[in-house]
């Protein structure tokens, strides 16, 4: 019985690991995103972490997903969860040279 319970408990722990969405981390450092292009799945989460000693901002004017997550200092992050397939152009409103593309697949 103990073994059975342990197995159930383990499955309960692992099951969501297999089913739920991915979390992708994108760093903002030296006024650049850590990647220019990211491929994700619908439902995934993307976290933008500010590693610079000044504020960054995150926004997108894309048709696929329009958002403005505001500005935040070093050590903080903002995140989005993608809900539909398409291409999302992400920018920093403070530093216009910062831009990247997220390709969202089904």
């Amino acid at each position, binding site marked *: 019985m103990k073994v059975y319970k342990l197995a159930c408990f383990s499955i309960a*722990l692992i099951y*969501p*690991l*297999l089913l*739920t*969405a*991915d*979390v*992708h*981390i*994108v*760093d903002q450092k030296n*006024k650049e995103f*850590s*990647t220019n*292009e*990211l*491929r994700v799945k619908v439902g995934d989460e*993307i976290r933008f*972490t500010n*590693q610079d*000693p*000044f*504020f960054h*901002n995150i*926004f997108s*004017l894309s048709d696929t997903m329009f958002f*403005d997550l*505001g*500005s935040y*200092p*070093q*050590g903080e992050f903002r995140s989005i969860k993608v809900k539909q397939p398409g291409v999302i152009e992400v*920018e920093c*409103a*403070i*530093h*216009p*040279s910062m831009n990247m593309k997220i390709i969202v697949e089904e």
Partner: protein
Amino acid sequence: MASGIYLKGLFLQPFLLTLLLLPELISVLYASEDSDSITYFEPGHPSLQQWLLPVPPITTAANAVEQLQLGKLLFFDPRLSANGNFACSTCHNPSLGWSDGLKTAIGQQGISLNRATPSLINVAYNKIFMWDGRQSNLESQVLGVMGAEHEMNADYEKLLIFLSQNSTYRRLFAKAFPGKHINKETLAAAIAQFERTIISKNTPFDRWIAGESAAMSADQVAGFQVFINKTKGNCASCHHPPNFTDDGFHNIGLKSFASSNPDLGRYNIKPIKISKGAFKTPPLRGIGLTAPYFHDGSAATLTDVIDHYTQGGEVTTNIDPEMKKLSLSKIEKKQLKLFLEALTTTTDSYPVPILP
């Protein structure tokens, strides 16, 4: 997995994420402390070399010299404007720090324009152009201003005929752009090429950074410390090395933003909340020559600029998060001003070309 890290699992995420991010969080904290401790205020110290400007990014085109020589003539030639009385140099006057000394620019027919004329000093290093960043390269900036109704209002069709009929210009274009026509593209390329030669990189600050200890006084060095210290001036948060700009956009809380019809600046290009009332960070070399300051020309002197920042801006609506009241003593403010003065070289007379 371009981002380097990705995680699965709803329940384990917070724990795993914390665990996996721990080294990164530590490194962020360490870097923050380190960024202060690694800056040694000694002339020529390696930690200061990030402030040295690289070789000017003048194009390596085969005919670069011929192009900039042609561009210099065009820059000073008022016949490029509709009325024949308005050259690039009318607003970008070398005697006035390649600006015009006015609060805001005056255009054709004496019309007062909304924004101050930006200096062209070190424009070669810019990554984005105009106060609102609506131009992405120097060539398009040149054509935009030349064609603007209240600026040079150039009639390009007539202008290109004039240039083609002028034997000297025809010869110079042929030398600068072999095999190409005289057109808007070559016209803009020549002027932009000339503008890229307007460089300031031998200021007292530059010489001190390079190791010349007598180039800056002790007060100016102290002013530099105030400038980069996040708990003091916090100026370097936006005026980044090496050209004293982050090529970014900030609302610095100017009084004019509280007017009934404020200039929204960058918001007109990128309609994002933080962009409302935000304008491009100007580079600071040559700043001693380019008064008045700010996009609306509202600061007459460097003292006014420092006072504005010390009080954390005048209008706090949508103000940039880096803007905050500064705790600066009278001496520190004076030192900061002295440091800013070390970012300018003495003006030499500038020979204006004889037009063909």
